[in-house]
């Protein structure tokens, strides 16, 4: 049977905040846009973001975008690109107002303005007093934003391919991306979507670690597609472990809990963050707090029978504050930790949460294919959100900057695409050989016989990543990790499915996801092994200092030959002076 083909101006892979905000710009401009999502759009993981989105609205305390920019550069441990950061922090303000106008039910202050709470790493006046910059809809901000964006896309009549799985990008001989091969999960039928422009907005890859706040769907599909298309991923060694996951489970307890006045204690009841971050204490940057928790546990001051976690104390707060500002957290704590935070502290431990690295883009969302500092972008290919790396988060992302990233760069990618399609109105001819290659990747899973199961290899892989690429990393441990993940990659060839039916075959989609996770996992392990310094979330006891002379540069990883290269940090902002690297204390 001939492969069905459909043509669009733009193909967007992923229907989280970045994909939907881009789609909205495009649909409003009357472009023919297809949004492909492996889940119904409101199931995308943006829905789980809790605390809020940063914008210097100054509704609660004095603020301006320049302070926000300083905090973000410092938070990035000086690995973020300052032109992109300036842009994001400036655009934050109109972006949040636009969201509010679209219907997001933000919590409110008495004067009717949007409620803003304190979050980690925020300061007034370039490192002064704590700021309150995070715009919140109770502790369900991601849900509120994702549903609103979906609703606006219904209004704009965006074309959705719900429950379609993207298998691979299709490219021509010159490397130009012509669309993607996708799979209708319900029927098992492949479909070729040809597009003049393609935007990857496939989100994160937290599932590569065993304990994670990320959803089952966060398997790094877009990142892996980029690798297989011969393009690089940037700064993949920088993976954020959120300090407060529910111990042993990984579900997220928002930083907003500490923003509202909660704090961490060890088994002696000691408020230990005072030792590690005397000024910011519990609202130090996430990498700092996560390391402090792991250190407490390693030094024998953990709580519980296994002494393997610490406690997040909230019960000194007024019950009314918890009910109003943190209702979702109260619910989650009761369900998953068996604890009502109004009465008892919540057992917490760091959980794999967010990857700072991703598909390298410029600040217009255009994919940058080389390590050349003055290199050009790849025409027609875009990426935004957690799958991309603009790079605004550098070595460590601040809480409240991820919703901001997806919204600002999703919107901007949409606008860049509108310009591109105006100037390049025709489709390029398909490369049939490349389509066959992608079909072959799909067809491989029809092989029958005995072999390893998807779930067995997945377990082995996720455990390996957790053991060898976690919060603290030393040379030997990482070298072993890379070897193990390479061996796991070899084993993929021996994986067999027992289910070969066409209808809603999750066995097959999970096999495709496992391939993606392993490709991405190897980029993390390899990039981490070679960065011989400690910066942001990449913490090496064997190289405890940040080394700006040697390592203030971005890592690029290519799949072929597991090759690495480096490129400079863009330290020059758009209109203001550069923030030079300083020692990072909180």
């Amino acid at each position, binding site marked *: 049977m001939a492969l069905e083909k459909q043509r669009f101006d733009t193909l967007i892979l992923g229907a989280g905040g970045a994909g939907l905000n881009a789609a909205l710009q495009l649909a409003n401009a009357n472009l023919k846009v297809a949004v492909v999502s492996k*889940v*119904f759009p*409101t*199931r*995308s*993981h943006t*829905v*789980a973001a809790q605390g809020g989105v940063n914008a210097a*609205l100054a509704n609660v305390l004095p603020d301006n975008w320049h302070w926000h920019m300083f905090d973000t550069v410092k938070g990035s441990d000086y690995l973020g690109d300052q032109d992109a950061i300036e842009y994001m922090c400036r655009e934050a303000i109109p972006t*949040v*107002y636009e969201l*509010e*106008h*679209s*219907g997001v*039910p*933000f*919590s*409110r*202050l*008495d*004067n*009717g*303005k949007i409620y803003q709470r304190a979050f980690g790493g925020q300061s007034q006046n370039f490192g002064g007093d704590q700021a309150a910059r995070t715009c919140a*809809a109770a502790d*369900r901000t991601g*849900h*509120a934003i994702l*549903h*609103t964006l979906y*609703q*606006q896309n*219904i*209004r704009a009549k965006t074309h959705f391919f719900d429950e379609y799985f993207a298998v691979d990008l299709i490219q021509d001989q010159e490397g130009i991306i012509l669309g993607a091969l996708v799979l209708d999960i*319900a029927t098992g039928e492949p479909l070729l979507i040809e597009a003049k422009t393609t935007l990857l907005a496939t989100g994160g890859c937290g599932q590569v670690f065993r304990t994670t706040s990320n*959803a*089952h*769907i966060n398997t790094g599909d877009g990142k892996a597609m980029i690798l297989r298309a011969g393009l690089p991923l940037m700064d993949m060694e920088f993976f954020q472990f959120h300090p407060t996951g529910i111990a042993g*489970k990984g*579900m*997220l307890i928002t930083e907003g809990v500490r923003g509202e006045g909660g704090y961490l204690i060890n088994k002696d009841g000691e408020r230990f963050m005072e030792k590690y971050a005397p000024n910011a204490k519990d609202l130090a940057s996430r990498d700092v707090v996560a390391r402090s928790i792991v250190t407490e546990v390693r030094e024998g001051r953990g709580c519980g029978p296994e002494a393997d976690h610490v406690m997040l104390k909230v019960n000194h707060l007024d019950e009314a504050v918890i009910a109003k500002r943190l209702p*979702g957290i109260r*619910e*989650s704590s009761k*369900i*998953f930790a*068996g604890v009502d935070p109004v009465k008892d502290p919540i057992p917490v431990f760091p959980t794999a949460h967010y990857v700072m690295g991703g598909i390298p883009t410029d600040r217009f969302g255009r994919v940058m294919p080389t390590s050349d500092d003055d290199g050009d972008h790849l025409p027609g290919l875009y990426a935004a959100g957690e799958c991309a790396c603009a790079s605004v988060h550098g070595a460590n992302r601040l809480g409240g900057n991820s919703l901001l990233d997806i919204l600002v760069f999703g919107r901007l990618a949409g606008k860049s695409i509108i310009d591109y399609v105006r100037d390049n109105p025709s489709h390029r001819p398909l490369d049939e050989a490349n389509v066959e290659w992608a079909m072959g990747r799909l067809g491989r899973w029809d092989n029958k016989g005995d072999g390893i*199961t*998807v*779930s067995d290899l997945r377990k082995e892989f996720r455990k390996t990543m957790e053991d060898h690429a976690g919060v603290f990393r030393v040379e030997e441990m990482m070298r072993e990790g890379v070897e193990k993940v390479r061996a796991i990659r070899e084993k993929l060839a021996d994986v067999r*499915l*027992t*289910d070969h*039916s*066409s*209808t*809603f*075959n*999750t*066995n097959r989609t999970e096999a495709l996801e496992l391939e993606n996770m392993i490709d991405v996992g190897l980029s993390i392990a390899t990039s981490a092994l070679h960065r011989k310094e400690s910066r942001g979330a990449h913490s090496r006891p064997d190289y405890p200092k940040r080394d700006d002379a040697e390592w203030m540069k971005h890592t690029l990883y290519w799949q072929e030959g597991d090759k690495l290269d480096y490129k400079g940090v863009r330290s020059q902002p758009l209109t203001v002076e550069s923030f030079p690297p300083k020692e990072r204390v909180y």
Partner: protein
Amino acid sequence: MKFSVYRYNPETDNEPYMQAFEVEARQGMMLRDALMAIQEQDESFTFRHSCGEGVCGSDGVNVNGSNKLACITPLSELKETVEVRPFPGRPVIRDLVVDMSQFYAQYKQVDPWLIRKEPLPEQEILQSPEERDKLDGLYECIMCGCCSTACPSFWWNPDKFLGPQALLSACRFLADSRDQASEERLNSLEGPYKLFRCHTIMNCVEACPKGLNPTKAIGHIKEIMLKDAI
């Protein structure tokens, strides 16, 4: 722990059947964990799930006769043998996966987006905390479908009666001080079916995993209509 799970693959089965599984129940385990363990035993078993914490709304199933989200349903609360079926009243695609397109179509019917007629301000549209409070209990819906697929009125008239989820969404926009299309929204709900097929059976309230109350929202819409009529 013993499970009896609904199985149906249209490619191989003439009709659905129940299959027995046994899963070792651990402390704190949720129904989703058990379904994943069953999937490890039999890779051909299919169900939707994602976030694992009750916010994405993917894994609604019918368990021991009630609609629930598998990821926030503790095994300790379930009576053995645990009977797991797809949502009632929806066409089954395979195993626990049902076709929800009618449910989504009804949601789209209520124009579920904020409508402003006045020009937009440069900053936020102001809303007092009291006005914002009116959205609580309405905006938190995760569209899992537990309510509408538990509703007899929706089973009988899924194409004409909007169902509790869509009506809760309609109420969410009617309750929003920023929305300026109340009249159109109310007019579009007129007639014997869309809204008025609700017979306050209240299955939706019992089924909602987020503790929302669609029956109350429907009652609230009726009240506004009545006030407007007088």
